[in-house]
C-alpha cells in the first residue's frame, strides 16, 4: 500500500555531474531585482528569491508528491485543515472547525465563509466535494502510484480501480449539507484521515479552473507522466495568499500576492523560485546575494554560512534513519543475531560523527516529538560484550552479514550513507560479525533492491508527512512487506487497530504497545533523527520552517 522508506517529498538527490554544475552555475545569476547582499536594505516590494534544487514536477496538488512542487503549491492552495506553525499538530485551515463521529467514519467540516478562489469563484461545500469527487474518480494513468501518490496512500483506491495493487477505497462520499458544511464519509473507521488531510496534496482547487484547464489529462507512462492540460503548469487556481504568476522551466517560477486573500495578507508582493541544482551552488548564490534563501544546507557548510552572515534556520526533526533487516535469510530470522546487531552499533557515535548539532539518537521507529512516544520499551545500549554474548547464544558460528548502502543521496536522516556504513561496519566487525559490503545508486537500483527485500541489512529512513504515528509505524509494520520480510501478527494487529480506533487515549495506548512490541522483535535498528537546515539572507524575517514541509511564505518579509 505504501512505499516504504521512500521519502517522496524530498527533492531528488543531488547528483554531482559536470553538466549539472555548468547549468547550475548559469542559473546562479539573476536578472531580476537583485536582492542586496546579507544585510543591505532591499527595496520595498522587491521579489523574494528562493533557490530551489529543481523545478516542481507539477503545480496540481493532487498530482505531486515532491517537496519542490509542494513548496510552491503550499503558497497558492490551502487545505481544509492545516498544520500548526513550526509543528505537526492539526489546526483550522479552510475549515473553521470539524467533528469526527464516534465510529470514526464520518467527518463533518464547517467551512470558512467569504473565501474566494483566485479566479473569483466562490469557495463553498460544493467546491470541496467537487475536489474529493475528482480525486476519487481518477481513471487511467491518474490512478498510478507515481501520479496520485498521496490519494493512493491515504484513501487506498478509486471508484473503479484499474490495478490489482489498489485496494477498496476508504472514501465513502462527500455531501454538501449546506454551503458551509461538508460531510465526508469513510467506508471503514480511520482515525488517520484528519491529520492526513493536512497534506498539501489534499488542497482544494477551483473546480472551474480544474475543468477549464483540463487538469485530469495525463498521458505518457507511470514512470514519466505527461500533464497535457494547463491547470498544473499555467493555471493553478486555489485560495492561498499567493497567486500563480509565470513559470519558465529551468529558469524561474514566479508567484504574486493575492490582494483579496481572506486572512492576513502576504507581506511579500512576489516570490521567485529559481532552480539551482547543486547544494554548493545554492550556498554560493546566497553568499553572493543573488538569492535570499534555500533549503537543506549541508551540515558541513553551516559554520561557513554563519560566518558569512547568513541565517541558519533549523527545521525540527520529523524523520528517522534506521538500519533495516530483511528477514528473508535464515541468519536474520535469528532474533539473537538481530539483538546482537542492535547492541553492537554505537549509534551515539554515528550521530555525533555524521550529523549536525540538533540531531539525536532515535530509539524507536518514530520521532520522539510525535504524540504517544514514551521510552517504555526495550532499549539496546551500545555494548560489544552483550553483542558477543548474543552471537554466542545464537548458535551461528562466523556470522556474515551482507550490508547494503546507497550512493548518490543525502538526506537529513542520512547525511552521508557511506560514512554511516563504514562506522557501522567497524562496529559490527568489533563485535565479531563479518560484513560483505554492497552498494548501488539510490534511485532506482537501491530503492528497488531494498524494497524487494534483497538486502539482509540496509540503510534507509523516512521523512514524516503528517503528525500521526501511523505515518511512521503503520507505514513500516502494519502488514507484510518484502522489504522487512517478516510476519508478526501481533504487531500487524496492534497497528491496524490503532489506525481504526476513534478514541485518542486508546490510540495512544495502542501505539505505545506497538512500540514495545517492535522494540522486542527488533525488525531493525533506528539510530538517528535529525533536523535539516535552511539558510536565509540576513534581512529575511518571519520564516518558520515546518517539520512536515508545510512552510507558509506569507509570513516572510524582507527588511
Amino acid at each position, binding site marked *: 500500500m505504501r512505499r516504504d522508506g521512500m521519502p517522496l517529498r524530498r527533492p531528488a538527490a543531488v547528483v554531482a555531474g559536470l553538466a549539472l554544475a555548468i547549468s547550475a552555475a548559469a542559473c546562479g545569476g539573476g536578472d531580476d531585482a537583485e536582492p542586496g547582499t546579507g544585510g543591505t536594505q532591499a527595496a520595498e516590494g522587491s521579489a523574494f528569491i528562493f533557490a530551489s534544487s529543481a523545478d516542481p514536477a507539477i503545480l496540481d496538488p493532487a498530482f505531486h508528491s515532491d517537496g519542490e512542487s509542494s513548496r510552491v503549491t503550499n503558497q497558492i492552495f490551502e487545505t481544509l485543515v492545516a498544520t500548526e506553525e513550526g509543528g505537526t499538530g492539526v489546526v483550522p485551515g479552510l475549515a473553521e472547525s470539524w467533528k469526527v463521529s464516534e465510529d470514526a467514519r464520518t467527518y463533518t467540516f464547517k467551512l470558512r465563509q467569504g473565501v474566494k478562489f483566485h479566479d473569483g469563484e466562490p469557495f463553498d461545500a460544493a467546491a470541496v466535494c467537487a475536489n474529493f469527487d475528482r480525486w476519487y474518480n481518477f481513471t487511467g494513468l491518474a490512478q498510478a502510484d507515481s501520479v496520485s501518490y498521496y490519494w493512493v496512500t491515504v484513501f487506498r483506491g478509486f471508484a473503479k480501480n484499474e490495478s490489482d495493487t489498489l485496494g477498496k477505497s476508504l472514501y465513502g462520499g462527500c455531501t454538501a449539507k449546506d454551503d458551509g458544511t461538508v460531510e465526508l464519509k469513510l467506508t471503514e473507521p480511520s482515525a488517520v484521515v484528519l491529520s492526513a488531510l493536512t497534506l498539501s496534496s489534499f488542497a482544494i482547487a477551483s473546480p472551474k479552473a480544474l475543468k477549464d484547464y483540463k487538469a485530469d489529462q495525463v498521458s505518457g507512462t507511470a514512470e514519466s507522466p505527461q500533464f497535457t492540460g494547463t491547470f498544473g503548469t499555467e493555471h493553478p487556481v486555489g485560495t492561498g495568499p499567493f497567486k500563480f504568476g509565470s513559470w519558465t522551466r529551468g529558469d524561474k517560477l514566479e508567484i504574486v500576492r493575492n490582494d483579496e486573500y481572506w486572512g492576513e495578507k502576504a507581506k511579500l508582493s512576489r516570490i521567485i523560485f529559481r532552480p539551482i541544482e547543486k547544494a554548493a551552488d545554492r550556498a554560493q548564490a546566497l553568499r553572493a546575494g543573488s538569492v535570499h534563501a534555500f533549503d537543506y544546507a549541508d*551540515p*558541513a557548510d553551516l559554520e561557513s554560512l554563519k560566518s558569512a552572515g547568513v541565517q541558519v534556520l533549523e527545521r525540527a526533526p520529523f524523520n528517522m534513519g534506521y538500519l533495516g533487516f530483511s528477514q528473508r535469510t535464515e541468519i536474520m530470522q535469528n532474533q539473537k543475531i538481530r539483538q546482537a546487531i542492535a547492541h553492537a552499533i554505537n549509534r551515539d557515535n554515528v550521530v555525533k*560523527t555524521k550529523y549536525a548539532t540538533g540531531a539525536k539518537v532515535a530509539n524507536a521507529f518514530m520521532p520522539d516529538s510525535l504524540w504517544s512516544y514514551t521510552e517504555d520499551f526495550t532499549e539496546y545500549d551500545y555494548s560489544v560484550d552483550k553483542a558477543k554474548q548474543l552471537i554466542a547464544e545464537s548458535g551461528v558460528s562466523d556470522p556474515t552479514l551482507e550490508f547494503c548502502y546507497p550512493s548518490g543521496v543525502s538526506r537529513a536522516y542520512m547525511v552521508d550513507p557511506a560514512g554511516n556504513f563504514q562506522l557501522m561496519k567497524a562496529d559490527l566487525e568489533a563485535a565479531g560479525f563479518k560484513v560483505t559490503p554492497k552498494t548501488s545508486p539510490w534511485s532506482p537500483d537501491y530503492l528497488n533492491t531494498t524494497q524487494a527485500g534483497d538486502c539482509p541489512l540496509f540503510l534507509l529512513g523516512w521523512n514524516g508527512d503528517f503528525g500521526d504515528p501511523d505515518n511512521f509505524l503503520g507505514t513500516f509494520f502494519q502488514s507484510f512487506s518484502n522489504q522487512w520480510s517478516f510476519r508478526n501478527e501481533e504487531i500487524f494487529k496492534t497497528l491496524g487497530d490503532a489506525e481504526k480506533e476513534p478514541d485518542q487515549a486508546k490510540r495512544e495506548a495502542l501505539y505505545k504497545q506497538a512500540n514495545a512490541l517492535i522494540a522486542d522483535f527488533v525488525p531493525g535498528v533506528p539510530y538517528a533523527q535529525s533536523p535539516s537546515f535552511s539558510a536565509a539572507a540576513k534581512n529575511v524575517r518571519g520564516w518558520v520552517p515546518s517539520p512536515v514541509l508545510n512552510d507558509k511564505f506569507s509570513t516572510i518579509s524582507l527588511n
Partner: protein
Amino acid sequence: MSLAQVETVAPEETGGSLGRDAWRRLRRNPVAIVGAILVIMFVALALLAPWLAPYPPDKPVGQVTPTSIPGPSAEHWFGLDDLGRDEFSRVLWGARWSLVIGVVSLLLGLIGGMVLGLLAGAFGGWVDGLVMRLVDIMLSVPGLLFAIGIAAMLGSGLDAVMIAIAVVNVPIFARLLRGQMLAQRQSDYVLAAKAVGVRRRRIVLGHVLPNSLTPVIVQGTLTLAVAIVDAAGLAFLGLSSNDPSIPEWGRMLADTQRYLSSAPLLAVFPGLAIIIAALGFTLLGESLREALDPKYRR
C-alpha cells in the same frame, strides 16, 4: 675533468654491455636517483604498512563531528578523517592498495598486450592487420573514458577497476611489442637463424621476444604511474571498491570533498601521496628510457 675521472669512466665506456651501460648511466642521473628513492620509499611503505601504521585504517580512533575534525597532532600526525580514523595510517595503507592496483593492472595489461603484440609481430599478414585494427580502435577512445566505460560495465569493485585500467594499457603494450618485433625480424641474427633452419616458435620466443622487451620494461614503469593516477581518478568518480572503508587514495580524496572548507588537509595528504608515487615512477621510467636507449649510448 680530472684525470681520475677519466680513468674510471674510460674502461666502462669501451667494454660495457647494454645492461652495464644502462646501470652506469642510471647511477649518474640525479633524476633517476630521485625517482628510484621515491619508488623504493613507496614500495617499502606499501609493504610495511601493517607494521608502520600506528592505528587500524578502518576503525574510528577518536571523536569527530561534521564541524570539528582535528588536524595534525603529535598523536595523529595527519590528524583524523571525517569518521575519526587516523589519516596517517590510512595514507600508509593507501600506498599498499595503490601498489596492488598498479601492479595487478600493469601485469594484466602487460599479459594482454604481449599476447596481442606477439601474435601480430610473429605472424604478420592478416593476423597483424586484424590485431592492429583492434588496437587502433581501442587507442582511439580516450584512456580514462575507456576505463570508466569498462569499469561501469563490469560493475563496482576493485577487480573491475584493475581490469579496466589493464584493458586501457593492452593496446599500448601490443603496439610497442609488435613494432619492436617487426624491427627485430629483419635483423641479421634472425635472418641467420632462419637460414640455418631454426623453427619460427624458437626464433620468436627465444630470440626476438627477449630482445624486444627493453622498451616494454620502460613502458611498464611509466604505466605504473598512470595506473596509480587512473585508479585514483576512477575512485574519485565513484568507481572503486564496494567497501568504502578501504583506504584508497582517490576515494579518500573524493570522500573529503565536503570538508574542503573545514578540513582542507584531508584532501592534501592523499593528494600529495598520489603525486609523489606517480612522480617517482615517472622519473624512474623516463630515466630508464634514456639509459636503455641505444641512441643515448656515448
